């Protein structure tokens, strides 16, 4: 469903992505792992044109987006099929939880208000926030805010949800509630591409793992294979440090 080929990206003199390939099939839950600064987040942002890649092609749903030949309208159309969950939630601070979820439907997609509210409530119910419809972001905990972020992503009925380190900004005791929601989505067959540092998620929920370092994909494979028999020495070292830490 998503096929990226040879994506490159530099910021000023720093090369962040050195030709990355990536394939996500419908129903896949792909975890992107790797040390900080390896380009994981930039890759994710390039897939949704939050950053413009310097080179490479992106195929989404059979439609090809070639660097330099993408119009604003193409980008808008692509974005309407995808959703994004941010590390810092990025909720609209002047809107309630429910308005955060319905804004993109009512304004972006011109949906009828009643229908949007119905969808919005259902999305918030799903992430366990039925009692927080009318709370503003600053009245919610980090975990609750991130669940609103996920509800906002769900409400637009996307074909894929991109998660950019969704639990990295959370207090340890709040991580569980967010991961539980993500796990539930994965079980329901949602296609997800998740940049994460949560090894338990990569191991137990995702079916595919991509390991990146220094702007390149070092290793990729099924998550069972990846954790049981990592082929690269660098991957083994990475996994060892992590297991040492925990």
């Amino acid at each position, binding site marked *: 469903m998503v096929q990226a080929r040879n994506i490159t990206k530099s910021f000023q003199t720093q090369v962040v992505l050195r030709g990355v390939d990536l394939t996500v099939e419908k129903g896949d839950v792909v975890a992107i792992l790797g040390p900080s600064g390896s380009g994981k987040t930039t890759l994710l942002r390039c897939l*949704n044109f*939050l950053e413009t890649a310097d080179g490479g092609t992106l195929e989404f749903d059979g439609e090809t987006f070639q660097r330099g030949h993408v119009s604003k309208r193409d980008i*808008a159309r692509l*974005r*309407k099929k*995808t*959703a*994004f969950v*941010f590390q*810092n939630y*990025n*909720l*609209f*601070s*002047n*809107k309630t939880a429910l308005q955060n979820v319905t*804004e*993109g*439907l009512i*304004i*972006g*997609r011109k949906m009828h208000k009643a229908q949007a509210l119905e969808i919005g409530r259902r999305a918030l119910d799903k992430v366990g926030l039925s009692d927080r419809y009318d709370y503003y972001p*600053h009245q919610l905990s980090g975990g609750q805010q991130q669940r609103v972020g996920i509800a*906002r*992503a769900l409400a*637009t009925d996307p074909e894929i949800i991109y998660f950019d380190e969704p639990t990295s900004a959370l207090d340890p005791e709040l991580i569980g509630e967010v991961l539980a929601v993500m796990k539930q989505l994965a079980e329901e067959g949602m296609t997800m591409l998740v940049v994460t540092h949560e090894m338990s998620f990569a191991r137990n929920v995702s079916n595919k793992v991509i390991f990146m370092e220094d702007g390149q994909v070092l290793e990729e494979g099924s998550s069972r294979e990846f954790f049981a028999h990592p082929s690269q020495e660098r991957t083994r070292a990475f996994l060892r440090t992590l297991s040492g830490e925990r």
Partner: protein
Amino acid sequence: MSERLLEIIVDSFTKILIPGIKVTIPLTILSFSFAMVIAVIVAMIQFAQIRVLKQICRFYIWVVRGTPLLVQLYVIFYGLPNLGIIIDPFPCAVLVFSINEGAYCAETMRAALESVPRGQIEAGYCVGMSYLQIMRRIVLPQAFRTAFPPLSNSLISMVKDTSLAANITVVEMFMATQRIVARTYEPLALYIEVGLIYLLFCTVLTGLQHMGERRLNVAEERRKDPWYRHVISLNRFRRR
């Protein structure tokens, strides 16, 4: 206090207040409204980084902020007739005050726009909104909330600045007072009197500002946040 002085003060009160209501207040409201329109447009152009227009906006702000308001009034009112452009005193005052205040408020608005986290704009794109929709629904409402206290400051400041319009023959409160002084030779009492009327106007505006802030939830939300409490206490010393 002599009986004569008392009589002058009481007599002149309505004679000063009426030009205040008929001239000073409309002049302030009109000029500030136009200034806000200018400010929002100029701030949005800079925020959106529109190339050539942005340079023009920077130039406008540079010139207006770098020259005295009184000089601007004189150039437009006494200078432009040399080029055959003659504008009546009141419209001329509105024009100059709008342009002048617009430049200051544009900077306030720009700072407020930039204070809205960029991530919210990205989130807006990701849920399928266009740039203008994001500005209208997400960024501007938050920016106005942030800009409300400093903009109130500018408005209060402007009420007093309108007294400069006396220099271009607009008969507002100050000019009315000068005329009474010329007749009665009681400058001390009368200038204090007009000062008190300005004070009255500004007190009303300050009250409105507090009501507005409560309405916008600004006060309440920020009282909880120690950082903002710090910022607000600093701002108290920064009033123009």
